[in-house]
């Protein structure tokens, strides 16, 4: 099976182009924009970890190591497309235009993260694993029915493939021939469980065979390969050729979440090795250097911009008014039922009578 799904690359770990396929599409601008996104999301991710350590946000799920997969895939979207991310895909949602402030607010226990910016279709992060796959099929079907050329991208991890909803979502999408791209980030771990205990198959791409769905295995740390393969799959979707599965093979360097200690279940030296050889950002830098695109002044300036964008978002998040208990009651139904109205009234009365 592995032979049937060779790992696609555009540049190798030294930044050498190893495939001619997409040469003509790689402009200087594209390289720089993508590089910028990679740096941006990594800076954000690191900042979040330090915020969590300082107790300024709650438990946080880092994605460092997976930036190539997230940026490459999200960058391939068009404005009117839909995104169904997981809790680890805010690198992708940022790339697609989500608000940094809102993402921070999510990790601070606020609903605001779930509200995407005007005109952007970003669904709240899927927490119950794999439940988003059927949604994506339905949302994509609705686009098809409206006759648009919009497509849907749906993220999920290697662990998620074991859930029934993975299977039901894939099958629904294939039966409906819905314009959706199922984008798997195979980072070899579901918390502590290695992929060898998750499944017996050696690839995730092969799971598309059950549904007669096209699929591809791509080096998830090669942002360009990811970008081009996602574009191909999205194009098929837009043209009415149905869903696809992409397996982007990657690695998370750090913990599952800040509440997790990865040294309990794996040798973190592996992360160091992978960081040195094959890091998604390093690779693009090597490519840029080889092609005379590594402009230090531009990089310096870009990093400053990114950094101040993040700092501003943190400031905004921290300046948010305190969580308003009314919000608890006011969005359950469009029009609250008497049960909720009474409970709200009673709660506020109890607050008046003596605080929480």
């Amino acid at each position, binding site marked *: 099976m592995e032979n049937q799904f060779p790992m696609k690359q555009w540049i190798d770990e030294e930044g050498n182009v190893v495939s001619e396929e997409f040469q003509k599409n790689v402009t200087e601008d594209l390289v720089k924009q993508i590089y910028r996104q990679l740096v941006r999301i990594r800076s954000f991710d690191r900042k979040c970890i330090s915020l969590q350590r300082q107790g300024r946000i709650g438990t946080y799920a880092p994605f460092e190591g997976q930036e190539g997969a997230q940026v490459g895939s999200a960058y391939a979207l068009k404005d009117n497309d839909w995104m169904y991310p997981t809790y680890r895909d805010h690198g992708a949602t940022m790339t697609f235009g989500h608000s940094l402030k809102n993402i921070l607010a999510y990790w601070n226990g606020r609903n605001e993260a779930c509200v995407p910016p005007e005109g952007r279709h970003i669904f709240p992060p899927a927490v119950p694993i794999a439940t988003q796959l*059927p949604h994506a099929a339905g949302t994509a079907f609705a686009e098809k029915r409206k006759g648009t050329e919009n497509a849907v991208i749906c993220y999920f991890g290697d662990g998620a493939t074991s859930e029934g*909803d993975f299977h*039901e979502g894939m099958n629904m999408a294939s039966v409906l021939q819905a314009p959706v791209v199922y984008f798997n980030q195979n980072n070899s771990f579901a918390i502590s469980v290695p992929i060898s205990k998750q499944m017996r198959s050696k690839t995730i791409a092969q799971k598309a065979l059950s549904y007669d769905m096209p699929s591809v295995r791509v080096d998830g740390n090669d942002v360009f390969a990811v970008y081009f393969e996602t574009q191909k799959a999205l194009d098929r979707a837009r043209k009415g050729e149905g869903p696809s599965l992409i397996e982007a093979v990657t690695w998370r360097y750090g913990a599952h979440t800040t509440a997790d200690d990865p040294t309990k279940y794996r040798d973190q030296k592996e992360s160091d090795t992978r960081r040195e050889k094959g890091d998604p950002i390093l690779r693009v830098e090597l490519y840029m250097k080889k092609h005379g695109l590594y402009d230090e002044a531009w990089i310096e300036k870009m990093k400053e911009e990114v950094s101040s964008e993040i700092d501003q978002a943190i400031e905004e998040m921290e300046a948010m008014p305190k969580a308003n208990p009314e919000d608890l009651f006011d969005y359950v139904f469009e029009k609250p039922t*008497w049960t909720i109205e009474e409970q709200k009234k009673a709660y506020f009365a109890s607050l008046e009578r003596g605080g929480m």
Partner: protein
Amino acid sequence: MSTAVKTNTLTLVQAVTDGMRTMLREHDDVLVLGEDVGVNGGVFRATDGLQSEFGETRVMDTPLSEAGFTGAAIGMAVNGLRPVVEIQFLGFVYPAYEQIMTHASRIRARTMGHYSVPMVIRAPYGAGVRAPEIHSDSIEALFTHMPGIKVVCPSSPYDAKGLLVASIEDPDPVIFLEPMKSYRSSREEVPEDKYTVKIGKGKRVMEGDDVSIFAWGAMVPVAEKAAKEMTEQGVTCDVIDLRTLYPLDKDLIAESVQKTGRTVILHEAHRTGGVGSEIQSIINDTSFLYQKAPVEYVTGFDTPVPFFAYEDHYLPTSNRVVQAIQKVINF
């Protein structure tokens, strides 16, 4: 000059079909989906004729995949459609429970109103038709304890259409329970045009002063039968068809109990954790001092809904209701 309302004489299941047809005609965004709802017209014929009238993209047979098609329907609803999902029997809703609990019911709250799920989940339910195991579960309470979703259960053809239309128009998800045993047990005049019955409002089906009886679905005729028997003994009952199980009609419950002071609660679901306890809780909150006797329950047992050879024992009977009425009267 009065305008006569055009009506048809329909069974409950026909009224359900009529409700869907009405809404499919009115809104292009309304879809019907589920197992066997297409050319077969549903295993109870509830979608009979709909696919031939509206086509395969409006009335869709889905794979045998309750989580898959309920989840897909959520994704459709979020993106502007109004899916009406059929679960073939309520006892087969369990695989979709996660989708309903963690998504359908919560998306509005999670996104502070940015996304919502105007979806209806229809399901035949209840025992009494000699169906195989699992087909007869009566699990309203698994949805009334799920914030963000309404639970509706008509007992008559007129209410069935009116409540279904209201459910499809509701901006939030609704579980629409159809008592299988009542599907064809009676007929009623049902207006041909669109009308709604308000969600959240019960209905007094018999008026009386001595005892309140609360019921819904296929238990309403059982309550009525018992009440009629009692009338002969000079005891009059206020029989309330609750019609909506979340939110319950608190005002009607309170009004009735404050009049009678005596209550019998009737449902076919298991006693422990059933919606009955919730009615009692409303009585506690609203009418404590009016109570002249403990509430009597006539319900299914804390046993699985049994194989059908035993279902006549499991299902509440008017006889058991009569005994309960006598008990609250004689307290």
